[in-house]
């Protein structure tokens, strides 16, 4: 395990709540990003990220450190996101998908519109993947995680990750072909 993570976990076990706050600050952005890529909107991703850290706080005293803290955290994130996705997120139910991230203030509006269009297509394409495929693509493409760690997060064999990624990319290529031609 990451030495800093180990020190923070030990400090938390000694009763230092500030160590938990440090862990949250270190990982909240990545946790939120994974959830945001997996789900439809900010609200859902925000809720999932909250729930992830509540569960971590609950279970951390019993965390034995057999896996890396990051792997464990991402595993909780992915499982909760899959759970949320299967329940049908609020954004989907209400039809309020907020697909665009906040653009920088001085952006050219045409460029922004184009980028938002691309973001929309990519989002729709990723969403169309079966949930577990979607999770693996997010972990690989956006989190740059090695196949071995993705396998531990997803609770499957490394070969399964490779095969799933191969299948997912076949679909992604087909679905993204229109935007790729115009780029």
């Amino acid at each position, binding site marked *: 395990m990451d030495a800093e993570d180990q020190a923070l976990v030990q400090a938390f076990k000694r009763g230092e709540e500030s160590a938990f706050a440090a862990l949250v600050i270190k990982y909240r952005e990545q946790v939120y990003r994974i959830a945001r*890529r997996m789900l439809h909107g900010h609200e859902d991703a925000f809720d999932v990220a909250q729930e992830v*850290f*509540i569960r971590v706080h609950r279970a951390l005293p019993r965390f034995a450190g057999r896996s890396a803290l990051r792997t464990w955290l991402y595993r909780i994130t992915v499982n909760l996101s899959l759970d949320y996705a299967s329940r049908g997120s609020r954004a989907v139910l209400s039809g309020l998908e907020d697909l665009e991230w906040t653009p920088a203030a001085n952006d050219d509006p045409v460029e922004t519109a184009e*980028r938002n269009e691309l973001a929309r297509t990519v989002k729709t394409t*990723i969403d169309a993947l079966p949930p577990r495929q979607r999770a693996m693509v997010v972990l*690989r*493409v956006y989190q*740059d995680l090695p196949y071995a760690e993705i396998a531990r997060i997803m609770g499957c064999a490394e070969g399964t990750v490779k095969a799933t990624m191969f299948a997912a990319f076949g679909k992604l290529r087909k679905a993204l072909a229109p935007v790729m031609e115009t780029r």
Partner: protein
Amino acid sequence: MKCSEARDLILESLTGTTPPDRRRALLAHLQECSSCRREAAEKEETVATLRAVPEPRLQGDLWAEFMVALDRRIAEEMTGWRWLVRLLRTPRIAWGAAAATSVVVVALAVILFVWPFSQSERAANDDAQADLSGLVTESVVQSIPSMTTVLTSWKAGLSAPDVSYELVSTGGR
């Protein structure tokens, strides 16, 4: 390198890290194999398109909101016994708790076992009536003159495990 192996590696090397020797082998294959080259170009474009979308980000004050909400929910959870469990689980406090528990256990043992015996011992060895007169009135003491006898026989029963039940009971008769 076979084409099937190359196809596997193309995706791996495009989306993340690949050991240098595997990467070199892949590049060598791509130089000779046009179909794998085409495959690599397509995959590369797909990855580039996926990554062209910027990472979602929360504004600064939303993170502050996140921390406040999290603190509140944890505080709600940490009421009552969960708080106590957390407290007792922390090693520093757990040592203290263990020490306090052992002190209580030892104190209870003294009160329950050692103290009564030392009392009865004294009562038996010294003049029992003189000992008890401090606690009870003269008349009560007068009414139990056989206290010493009772204590002595009771002690004999307890402290003489080699004396069988048969002998003790027939002796009493």
